[in-house]
């Protein structure tokens, strides 16, 4: 069957089979290789994308059920003007080791900071609890998220951001 959806603001359509997931369609039908194929059971978060405004594991979304949906992937975050602030922060803080989990983490982090611009250390750890980094580089990851949060706060309000000190330790 054919499904029609919007991906990163552009109308797309794809022929899908019943057993296919949104992840399969993004990668194999639409050539968007950012969302990664790892556990295929919602454990690792490396396929995180936004579906109609919700952060989801694309591997757990049945492709046939995304008819009419709006999907955004990691490919939609950067613009001509440059990297998304979360991507910039991941680069600056060295929050990438092998990189396989990075796209999912970037999408999850961008979603978190949209929802909670003042996310605490605990909020960050909770929000990223479904994104596994098997290089175990969690310290730099949490620092990168806190730095992106603080940079956004500074951009809005020139007064020093009241970040919790443990994020920087």
């Amino acid at each position: 069957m054919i499904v029609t959806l919007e991906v990163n603001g552009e109308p797309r359509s794809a022929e899908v089979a019943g057993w296919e997931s949104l992840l399969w369609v993004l990668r194999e039908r639409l050539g968007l290789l950012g969302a990664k194929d790892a556990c295929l059971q919602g454990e690792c978060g490396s396929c995180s994308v936004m579906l109609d405004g919700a952060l989801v594991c694309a591997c757990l979304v049945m492709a046939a059920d995304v008819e009419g949906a709006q999907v955004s992937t990691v490919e939609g975050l950067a613009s001509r003007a440059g990297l998304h602030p979360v991507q910039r922060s991941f680069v600056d803080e060295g929050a990438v080791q092998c990189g396989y989990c990075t796209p999912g983490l970037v999408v999850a982090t961008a979603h978190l900071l949209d929802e909670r611009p003042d996310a605490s250390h605990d909020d960050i750890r909770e929000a990223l609890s479904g994104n596994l980094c098997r290089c175990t580089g969690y310290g730099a990851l949490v620092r990168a998220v806190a730095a992106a949060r603080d940079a956004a706060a500074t951009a809005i309000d020139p007064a020093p951001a009241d970040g919790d000190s443990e994020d920087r330790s």
Partner: protein
Amino acid sequence: MLIERPQDLPEALEGIGGSPHAVLLAGGTDLMVEVNLAHRRPEAVIALRRVDDLQTWEDGFIGAGVTYARMETGPLPALAELARTVGSPQIRAVGTIGGNLGTASPAGDTLPFLAAIDAEVVLGSRDGQRRLPWHEFLVGPKQTALTPGEVILGVQLPDHIPARQAFAKIGTRQAMVIATVNCCVLRDDDGTTRVAMGAVAPTVMRPREAERLASSEPRPSQAALDEFQRLVSAEVAPISDHRATEQYRRHAAGVLARRTLERCLTP
């Protein structure tokens, strides 16, 4: 594969009645794991996420399509606590209470709350509705009383909701974990106590002897709590599997139930 994407409840009920063996799809967090691992290849699917009637949460009725994310910020403390222990934000954004009931895992995290509060499961078909008490709906591990042509519409809670509520769960980490043991305790100001335990029997269960003891104690002493713990451990009927041994679960069930009760006793 055929898929129907009904836009409202009448259309959904008609579709389910017309394809009684179609697989019902809500959040997909259980079904798609089986599909991805090639354990299942559904021939027909009815996708329910567009049906607004299933998203209703009014008074004591919680629609089958209510997600864990909504439960987390909802008015019922134990339901909010348990929702926060399910999966990850990605799972909680789409996973539903109706899906948890339909999957009927012995470890399902909403089930101890629904059992403790004596919820009824509301089922619908194109022929009408029926309500079943939780213990008549959950008939075995991954087995329910849902018949072909029916769909879970939601759960009906009783009018009286105990003020003191707590949920706790044991697993190998804080997130992304299926319960080794889970537990919900509800307590009224007069001491009436309801306890439900998951992952320690073929379905969620109520340790009735332990409930009677706790209910008879306005301010349970340490000795009474010891006895409560012992009774819970004696009443559960766990198995050994890849998550834990029967002995571990039996011990952990008593400890977990006691701690959860103690939380309900804290002023």
